[in-house]
Each structure stands twice: as structure tokens, then as C-alpha cells.
């Protein structure tokens, strides 16, 4: 059990920066997920914590000790790899006990720990098998078992579910969460899948281009993204972005103008916050698809009508995704399956302005 701290951690490969100054504090027992697109530096950051990559600059501390020059084996960490990295010539028991055997633990203690981990992961029957005789999900469990038996200060997961099929991935995601609830070890988990990030994490770290964009609890990232990148990355389908202008409206209010014909009234409580941006160029209006719904009956407060012609509809069963264009920008909305949406048909939608975001393109920040 330990906290992990990263101070201005930098990694460059032949003058190409991969990680460009990451500051992060991970609390003891916390489950942190690093998420971001390919090449954002999340795996490199994890591998630096593991000691598999040298740190170009900065400082990494585990449990209060600087570990920059400590080899992986002395960092008291355990890692689960994307392709499991099980030793193919060893049985499951030998795989799981390998680390303990190297540390010369007594045989009885090794057996106790492996049995305990096997029980937690429900792989007791597989202990005598070789990795080749296991399914993808079972191998994943063994890889986790190998980490658990070590009882390390920190668990590191490097995209552990990306080799599994969709159904198994959901199942294993739940397993990982359950295991963490049982063993409560500080965990750093890397994924490019935002659903994994949101469902597993105590706090999510969104990375882009070698830098941290935002750190926060899953709901905070969703409802209050700090940057355009986070706003667009978290949530599926992604947030709609439309270039806009802010204008003064009657009664001291503001309106956000998307096109010559379409303008929405900005909710009163946001007027003061948005006021400095009136008349400024390079602003973007952001609204999630779930906040563009079918206009049923009377509109609620801060909801405004939007008449559109649908280009494509995607029935998902519990809802229908509708796509339409405003001035050449394609947008998405989520409507009830009974709302009568059809390809090429007209539709009146409700935009929930209470959930809108205003992005300053000059800084990339959400206002």
C-alpha cells in the first residue's frame, strides 16, 4: 500500500517528446485510470512508474521514496500486460508463484498466497494447466493472479482488456473492480477505452499529446470538462461542436448564435460567466448528443426548439441516434425510439441549453 507521486515527469525518445511534464498525485488505495488516444503518453507514463522506461527528467515517488533509479524488481510493483505476458512453459501455479519463488518465500506461504489469489479470481481448477490451454479471459485472470500474489505496493495495468472480445471485456471489467474492492491496492490503469476509464476509476486522468488535460472523478469529467479535448474525448457519441458567436440579447441576457437563422438564449445563470466573450471570434458551442432530444410536449426551462432535417438515423433499441447538419457541421442527437425519426425526414428537437459548453478556441479551454 502506497501513494504514488509524479513530479514534472518527462520522457523523450531521440528528441521526440512522449511525455512532456506530468504532475500527478495518486493516493493510497486509489484506482487511477490514465486514458487518452494512441500516442498520448499514457503507456509511457505507466512504464516509467514500473521502471521499464528511464525517466528523462522529473521525479517519481512510490510510498514516499524517489524511485527514479530503482530497478523494477525493487519497486515493489506488479504489472498486468496487454498480452498477459504469461510464461508459456510454466503452469498457472508456476506463473503465479514465480515472483515469490525468486524472492525465496517458504513453500507453504507461496501455496497459501497462490490458493488465496486463485480463489479470489475463481481459477483454482486451472492451477496445473499451461497458458496455452486457457481461454483469453482465463489468461487475463492468471495475469491478475500473478500480480495479486505478490501483494505489491502498486498494481499497474497496461490496457489489460484490449485483447478480449466485447462481452468478456465487460465481464472482466467488473472482475477487476471487484478485485480492487477486495485487495484495495493502489492501482494505475491505462486504457484508450473511455468506458473502461469511467466505470473503473476513482479518478480519471485524461492525457493528450504527452500532457495531462484534466484529472477528475468520472462524473466531473463528463459534466465539467476543462478543455475541448476532454469534452470531445469523454462521452459516446462525442460532444457536438459548432462554431458560434455570443451576442447581447434583450433584457440583459445573452444569446449564442450558431448560424444566421439559429440562435439560442444562454441560461440566465451563465450570463455573467460568458459576458466577457461577447463579440469575440473563435468560440465553439458544445452540446452532448444526450442533450439534444426530441421535443415532446411543452419544453422545460432552458430547453429550446430546433427544427432540422435528419440525414441519418441509427436505431439502437432503447434510443435512436439522429444525425443532422447545421451549416455543414454534422451533429448528433438522441431521441426516443417512438419519436418518429426517419432518414431524410424533418424533426423538431429540443436543445438542453442548461448543459451547454462554451469553448474558447484560442486557449482550447471550456469557459
Amino acid at each position, binding site marked *: 500500500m502506497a501513494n504514488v507521486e509524479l513530479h514534472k515527469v518527462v520522457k523523450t525518445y531521440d528528441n521526440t517528446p512522449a511525455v512532456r511534464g506530468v504532475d500527478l498525485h495518486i493516493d493510497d488505495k486509489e484506482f487511477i485510470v490514465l486514458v487518452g488516444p494512441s500516442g498520448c503518453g499514457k503507456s509511457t507514463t505507466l512504464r516509467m512508474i*514500473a521502471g521499464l522506461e528511464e525517466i528523462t527528467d522529473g521525479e517519481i515517488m512510490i510510498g514516499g521514496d524517489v524511485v527514479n533509479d530503482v530497478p523494477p*524488481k525493487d519497486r515493489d510493483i506488479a504489472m498486468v500486460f496487454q498480452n498477459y*505476458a*504469461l*510464461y508459456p512453459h510454466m503452469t498457472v501455479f508456476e506463473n503465479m508463484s514465480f515472483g515469490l519463488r525468486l524472492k525465496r518465500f517458504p513453500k507453504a506461504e507461496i501455496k497459501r498466497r497462490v490458493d488465496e489469489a486463485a480463489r479470489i479470481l475463481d481459477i483454482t481448477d486451472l492451477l496445473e494447466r499451461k497458458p496455452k490451454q486457457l481461454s483469453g479471459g482465463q489468461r487475463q485472470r492468471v495475469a491478475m493472479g500473478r500480480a495479486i500474489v505478490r501483494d505489491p505496493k502498486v498494481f499497474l495495468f497496461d490496457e489489460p482488456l484490449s485483447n478480449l472480445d466485447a462481452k468478456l471485456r465487460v465481464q472482466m471489467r467488473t472482475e477487476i473492480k471487484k478485485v480492487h474492492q477486495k485487495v484495495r491496492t493502489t492501482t494505475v490503469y491505462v486504457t484508450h477505452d473511455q468506458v473502461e476509464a469511467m466505470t473503473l476509476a476513482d479518478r480519471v486522468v485524461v492525457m493528450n499529446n504527452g500532457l495531462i488535460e484534466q484529472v477528475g472523478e468520472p462524473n466531473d469529467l463528463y459534466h465539467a470538462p476543462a478543455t475541448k479535448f476532454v469534452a470531445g474525448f469523454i462521452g459516446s457519441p462525442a460532444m457536438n461542436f459548432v462554431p458560434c458567436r455570443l451576442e447581447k440579447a434583450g433584457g440583459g441576457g445573452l444569446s449564442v448564435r450558431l448560424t444566421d437563422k439559429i440562435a439560442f438564449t444562454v441560461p440566465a445563470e451563465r450570463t455573467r460567466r460568458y459576458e466577457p466573450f461577447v463579440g469575440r471570434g473563435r468560440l465553439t458551442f458544445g452540446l452532448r448528443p444526450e442533450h439534444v432530444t426530441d421535443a415532446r410536449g411543452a419544453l422545460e426551462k432552458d430547453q429550446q426548439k430546433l427544427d432540422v432535417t435528419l440525414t441519418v438515423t441509427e436505431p439502437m433499441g432503447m434510443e435512436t441516434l439522429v444525425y443532422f447538419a447545421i451549416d455543414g457541421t454534422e451533429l448528433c442527437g438522441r431521441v426516443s425510439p417512438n419519436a418518429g425519426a426517419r432518414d431524410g425526414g424533418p424533426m423538431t428537437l429540443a436543445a438542453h441549453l442548461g448543459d451547454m459548453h462554451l469553448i474558447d478556441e484560442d486557449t482550447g479551454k471550456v469557459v
Partner: protein
Amino acid sequence: MQRKSTIAFFMALPLIALIATLVLYPAGYAIHLATLNKSMERFVGLGNFFFLFKRETFWMVVQQSCIFAITAVIFKALIGFVVAHFVHNIPARGQRKWRGMLLVPWVIPPAMSCLAWLWLFDPSYSAFNWILALFGIEPVPWTGHTGWARFSVILVNIWIGAPFFMIMYLAALKSVPEQLYEAAAIDGASWWQRIWYVTLPMMRNIIAITALFSLIVTFANFDIVRVLTAGGPIDTTHIFGTWSFRVGIEGYDIPLGAAVSLFMVPILAVAAVFILRDITRRGNES
């Protein structure tokens, strides 16, 4: 069904014919030769073999062949493994160059490189003895004394054969997933433990097959001994191939030469069965 297997047989016929002409016929003919008398006129059954059993030189050749092949293969494997590791750790850009240079001994025709070695081993004018003389060490009779001559032929065989092991092990090393080493490093394995618990088990099949292949080739070696020592001094460096040539061609007793060369078959067959059985077993379990 009947038609299909007939077609299959005819399609495989060229290969069957090739094997029959190049493998079965010479093998059968060698066995046939080994059962004839010296003038090749009379069938003597196993007479040649019983004659060999009674000759001291034969048993010395058996012993020398085993020493020669086993020692050489062990050292070729060891050196190949170590060098492969070094080459594997050279950054990709310089690696090709080193790989190419290290393969040179294996690529040069052995008869030619052995001539160069012959000069290096020359008792009076050789570079080796000249260097030894610089340090005040007495000249060594490299090919003139039984012990040294045996050492020399093995040394040259290792020099020629180690690059083959190197290239095979290098290919095997490259196929070991990097993440296994990373997992082992995190599990707490030292450099040596990573080799012992990850590299060696992952390479076992390649090591076994390479060793078997090399054992066969080394056992049947001819050119190195022929050029360096011609079996001398007093037949002590003869191995099956060279002694069979000495007896059969130079001694005008072809049936006896054939009998000598046939002795390699059972010895190698036993080694092959053991090694291949091990590979099959492991192939099934992993």
C-alpha cells in the same frame, strides 16, 4: 477415394523418385558394399563388421569421433549462445554489420579456411607460435602431437560452426516476446535468472534441433580433419569420415570403408530419437 490417392501418389512421384535416387539407392548400395570382400567379388555377410570390432584403430576412431563431435557441439552451442546475446543487444542499425561479419567463418568453404588455419598452425613459421615466442613460450606442435592435434581440429570446427548456432539462436532470441522479460524484471528476476527462466526455456526447441543437426554434420565431418591433419599423427585424429576414406579409397578396401561409414547410422539414430522425442513432448504440452 481410390482415385484420389492414386493422383496423390503420382503427384508425389517426382519427390519419391528423387529420394529413391539420392537417398535410398546410395544407402542400399553402401550396405551392399559393406557385405562384400576386399576385391568386391564375394559376399561375406557381416564379416567386415566383425573384422572392424577386432581392430584397435576402429575403437579409437569411435572414441575420437565422439569426443570430436560432442566437444565441438557443446562449445559451438555455448559460444553461439553468448555471441547471439551480444549481437541481439547491439542497436538495430549496427546489428546487420556485425551479423554479417560473424557469419564469415561459416560462409567460407571449409577446405579453404582450413588451409589458412594450416598456416596458422605451422610449427616453424606460424603466427600462433610467433606470438607465443614473444612471451617466451616454447612453440606448440599444433598438429604434430596427438593432444594438440585433437585440440586443433576441434578448435577449427568450432570456429567454422559457431556462427550457424549464433544465427539460429539470434532468430530464436528475437522471437521471445519482450514483455516476458519485462514481466520477469518486475517479478524480480536478475539478468541471469531471466536467461535461465525465460530465454532458455523459450529457446529449448531451437537449441535441441540445432544441436542435433550440428551433431550429425560434425560427426560426419571430413574436410577439416583431412586438410589439417589427414588423420595424423598416427591416425589419432581420424573420425569416421576420414578413416573411412583412408581405408576405403586410399587403402583400396571399399567394402571396409563402407562398413566404417555405416557405423555412424546407429549412433546418430539414438541421439536423434532422444532429442526429437523431447521436442515432440514439449511441443504437445506448451
